[in-house]
């Protein structure tokens, strides 16, 4: 193939196919280079200036997020964020979306999503300790969706199980809007046994750039720009842009990188994962951050295919590759170290001090551009935003559910895919490898202990796009607070979040308004509970034939459990324990699972969230847990009290006998800031005394699996065995 | 060059879980006449033209590595490589 000339690229506007606008191309050629960029250079700009790499559409919004606290050691801008957890230890985490690759090739898309996020963690020198994921699909009606779900789940398990990291939790939801645009968000948490870490930088004239890991092939070229593009029927054939993962190589790479940074820190100046936009993104960012320049010789790059062009090598998204910046005197040691792990490691370039990015291929200089022009000089866009018309139209609507048969509605709700047990999926993930998992998937948060200490890390992935769709600001707040309640209910203190911001086309003013307002909501909630946003990613253009997904921010929250004895789960523990509902219940049915069940659509506004009340309730629960007053604790979320009660009873086949002031409908209300707890009878006085908030004593845990409930309007007895069976088997049944 | 194509399949007595899963997928596509599906592995080995004891060594490679005689059988064909 002969590459188009610089003039052809300009005259035929070939840059447009790669996603650069006329204005951007003009900026590059007239202002930055003062000449026409050649084929390779145009390719580099197009990928580095894509939303996925540059955040050019979302940067202004992202700045609204708080990213400081006493614990923050590194925030956004590194491969992952780092929080101090005391005793010279730190926790490192990040979440990333792999939505588009998963839509096109679900197994590999999901697998490489997991692989990519794990690399982001060990490139900080941290030992990854657990992974989680948040998945969204269309309804489980047709074979195509079921296939997609099976493949995504298999891809996540295939990678995580093989590399040997426990998948300790996550969430799976089903809504119509994700049918053609599934969301696959993965999070990884790591532990740094020191508060020192390696920045992803390439500094110091004449220091060497070392390539480590798998060979480069033609896979995933333009994956980053692909990720910033909308889906349409006609684009379904873009199969070439999917990477294939090799978890076996990544296991070696992970062990090698963790060991080299732990034992030979002085050899390495910087280290970065080759993720989206591969070699160009990693090396340009490393040089730009350090204020350096770089020379790369592509003939040295380990190649899996023949006759690759410079353009292909620079943009390849072949997996399991890292870039290191190494002092020349240690380079032989570094190469030998990786050779012992049977990994390819070669010097491919060196650092310069002229701030130019120069690439040689077949002895020709094929790129010579200012390194900052790939990273710092990307234009930032101020997008137009406007409140969606639906919100204005439906402002005063209040959904009033009708429940004629509480028992029947209860069972029906337990079977809804968004509520039913997801064990069918998560039992295919190894949740215990590394032998540190204290709380496995299925409770409010996953908990992993830190061996040799009293500490443990709680983690959760949460999103509720139905709320965000109805009211992005309040929905954003709820997303953070639900994650926080999951951490608190598990015995932890929320210390920080990462996020994946999954939205539609930012050039659509309504979609951009949703992004902006929900980020403001997230930011306000994070400020309230002092959980800085230390990493994350943005996935825009999640549309299919011009219909956008619900605005779907996903929050990955990490909590610190300072004493492992405080770990609490949602399951009732003993017959005769007293059950309490903490927090006030109102008629919150807009956006609820009950609204979807009864109306088949979302409608209405959300009530403002009282952040002070929310924080007070969280603090009280934390206090009660640390005073050992609570035996089980469960956050109230989708489906409300009825679902929380049933799920708390299922694990140990208990029943309960309760009487409540709530109406029958309110048993399914989704009012925020609430917890369901059980306590030992002898703790009643102490518990009620410390509980300076709204609460209601409901009744007791019983041995027989029978759910006896008297509401303000009804009295029913539900057979717990049938309830449990309905909840446990619903998904497996739908997946048949 | 000699090209040796090796086919490894599960013995008939061993349940082919993947084959069964594929069969049910094919059936759900509407091809209900497909009676049986078996999944196996396929290898290509290249040897020099004058390689001595070719069959003996291929047998050994198959017995010792490519197939597990407890559960799998294999067959191979020797061709002239193009």
């Amino acid at each position, binding site marked *: 193939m002969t590459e188009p000339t610089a003039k052809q690229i300009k005259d035929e506007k070939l840059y447009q196919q790669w996603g650069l606008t006329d204005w951007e191309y003009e900026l590059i050629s007239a202002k930055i280079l003062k000449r026409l960029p050649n084929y390779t250079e145009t390719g580099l700009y197009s990928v580095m200036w894509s939303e996925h790499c540059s955040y050019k559409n979302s940067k202004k919004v992202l700045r609204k997020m708080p990213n400081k606290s006493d614990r923050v050691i590194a925030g956004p801008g590194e491969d992952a964020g780092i929080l101090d957890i005391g005793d010279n230890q730190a926790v490192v985490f990040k979440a990333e979306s792999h939505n588009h690759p998963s839509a096109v090739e679900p197994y590999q898309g999901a697998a490489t999503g997991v692989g990519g996020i794990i690399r982001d963690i060990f490139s900080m020198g941290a030992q990854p300790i657990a992974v989680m994921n948040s998945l969204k699909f269309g309804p489980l009606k047709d074979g195509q969706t079921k296939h997609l779900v099976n493949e995504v789940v298999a891809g996540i398990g295939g990678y995580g199980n*093989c590399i040997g990291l426990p998948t300790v939790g996550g969430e799976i939801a089903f809504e119509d809007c994700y049918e053609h645009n599934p969301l696959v968000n993965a999070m990884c948490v790591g532990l740094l046994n020191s508060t020192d870490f390696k920045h992803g930088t390439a500094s110091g004239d004449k220091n060497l750039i070392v390539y480590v890991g798998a060979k480069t092939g033609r896979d995933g070229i333009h994956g980053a720009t692909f990720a910033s593009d909308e889906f349409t029927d006609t684009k379904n054939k873009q199969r070439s842009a999917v990477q294939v993962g090799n*978890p076996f190589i990544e296991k070696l790479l992970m062990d090698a990188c963790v060991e080299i940074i732990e034992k030979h820190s002085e050899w390495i100046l910087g280290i970065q994962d080759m993720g989206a936009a591969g070699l160009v993104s990693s090396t340009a960012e490393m040089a730009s951050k350090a204020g350096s320049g770089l020379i790369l010789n592509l003939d040295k790059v380990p190649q899996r295919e023949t006759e690759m062009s410079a353009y292909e090598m620079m943009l390849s998204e072949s997996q399991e590759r890292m870039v290191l910046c190494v002092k020349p005197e240690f380079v032989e040691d570094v190469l030998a170290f990786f050779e012992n792990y049977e990994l390819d490691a070669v010097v491919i370039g060196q650092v310069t001090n002229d701030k130019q990015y120069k690439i040689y291929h077949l002895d020709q200089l094929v790129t010579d551009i200012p390194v900052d022009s790939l990273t710092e000089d990307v234009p930032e866009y101020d997008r137009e935003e406007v409140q969606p018309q639906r919100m204005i139209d439906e402002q005063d609507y209040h959904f009033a559910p009708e429940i004629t048969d509480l028992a029947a509605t209860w069972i029906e709700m337990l079977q809804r895919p968004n509520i039913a047990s997801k064990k069918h999926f998560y039992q295919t993930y190894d949740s215990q490898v590394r032998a540190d998992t204290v709380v496995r998937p299925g409770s409010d948060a996953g908990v992993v202990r830190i061996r040799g200490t009293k500490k443990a890390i709680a983690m959760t992935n949460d999103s509720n796009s139905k709320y965000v769709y109805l009211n992005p600001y309040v929905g954003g707040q709820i997303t953070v607070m639900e994650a926080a309640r999951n951490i608190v209910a598990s015995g932890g203190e929320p210390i920080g979040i990462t996020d994946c911001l999954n939205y539609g086309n930012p050039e659509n003013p309504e979609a951009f308004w949703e992004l902006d307002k929900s980020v403001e909501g997230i930011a306000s909630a994070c400020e309230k509970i002092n959980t800085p946003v230390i990493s994350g990613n943005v996935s825009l253009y999640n549309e299919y034939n011009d219909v956008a997904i619900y605005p779907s921010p996903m929050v990955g929250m990490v909590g610190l459990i300072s004493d492992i004895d405080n770990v609490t789960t949602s399951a009732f523990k003993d017959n005769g324990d007293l059950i309490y509902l903490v927090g006030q219940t109102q008629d919150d049915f807009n956006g609820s699972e009950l609204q979807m069940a009864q109306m088949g659509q979302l409608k209405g506004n959300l009530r403002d969230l009282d952040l002070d009340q929310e924080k007070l309730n969280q603090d009280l629960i934390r206090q009660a847990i640390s005073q050992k007053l609570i035996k089980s604790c469960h956050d109230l979320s989708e489906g409300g009290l009825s679902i929380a009660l049933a799920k708390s009873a299922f694990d140990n086949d208990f029943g309960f006998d309760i009487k409540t002031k709530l109406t029958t409908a309110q048993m399914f209300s989704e009012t925020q800031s609430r917890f369901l707890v059980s306590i030992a009878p002898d703790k009643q006085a102490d518990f009620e005394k410390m509980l300076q908030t709204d609460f209601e004593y409901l009744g007791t845990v019983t041995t027989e699996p029978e759910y006896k409930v008297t509401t303000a309007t009804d009295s029913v007895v539900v057979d717990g065995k049938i309830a449990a069976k309905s909840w446990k088997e619903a998904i497996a049944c739908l997946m048949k | 060059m000699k090209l040796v194509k090796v086919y490894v399949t599960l013995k008939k007595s061993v349940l082919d879980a993947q084959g069964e899963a594929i069969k049910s997928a094919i059936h759900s596509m509407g091809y209900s006449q497909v009676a049986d599906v078996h999944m196996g592995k396929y290898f290509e080995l290249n040897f020099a033209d004058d390689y001595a004891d070719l069959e003996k060594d291929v047998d050994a490679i198959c017995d010792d590595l490519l197939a597990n005689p407890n559960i799998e059988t294999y067959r191979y064909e020797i061709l002239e490589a193009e």
Partner: protein
Amino acid sequence: MKFAVINFPGSNCDMDLYYAIRDGIKQPVELVDYRSESLAGFDGVLIPGGFSYGDYLRSGAIASQAPIVKEIIRFANEGKIVLGICNGFQILTELGLLPGALIKNEKGRFICETVALKVVNNETAFTSEYQANEVINVPIAHGEGRYYCDETTLKELQANNQIAFQYCENVNGSVEHIAGVMNQQKNVLGMMPHPERAIEEILGSDDGLKLFQSIINYQVRVNN
């Protein structure tokens, strides 16, 4: 009693096993590289779970060609203790040190769950601390854990009491619910469940601890 934990490329339960020995039964333990050619000085060899060589070709097949393997075979033939867990079990069958093979689970999916096991033979180096027919809770995590052997082999296993553990509920479709088998001399055990993940209550079960304690007690008896 000094243990070796063999580390193949892709092993991922090596440290879990290491900690089970170091912290669970407080015995000396070392990781041994797959390229090593000697097991001199060790009293027991442990082959950990994981995905050696990515489980490419067949689980355990490529690992069974590694340099350390000759030494493991020698060790086993001398009657010393060899325990393979999960991928370690797969490697031992690939090596021919244990009969049968491990193939894809009946339902074709990976399963991670804590399951009930029955101790079938409690008169062995690995099980003497358990009661006969004791039911214990031990996690499994495998996609290719369905034990298969032909009928003749099965009869031999039964006649010679080589079945160590059975699943109470046949989770993966194994022949005769087999979860763990030994060689004829009963110094080599392979099992799919992970006793090293069940040595502390905080992780959900400590039923695996007795397996490791049995090994030490056996060694004490041998030495006396």
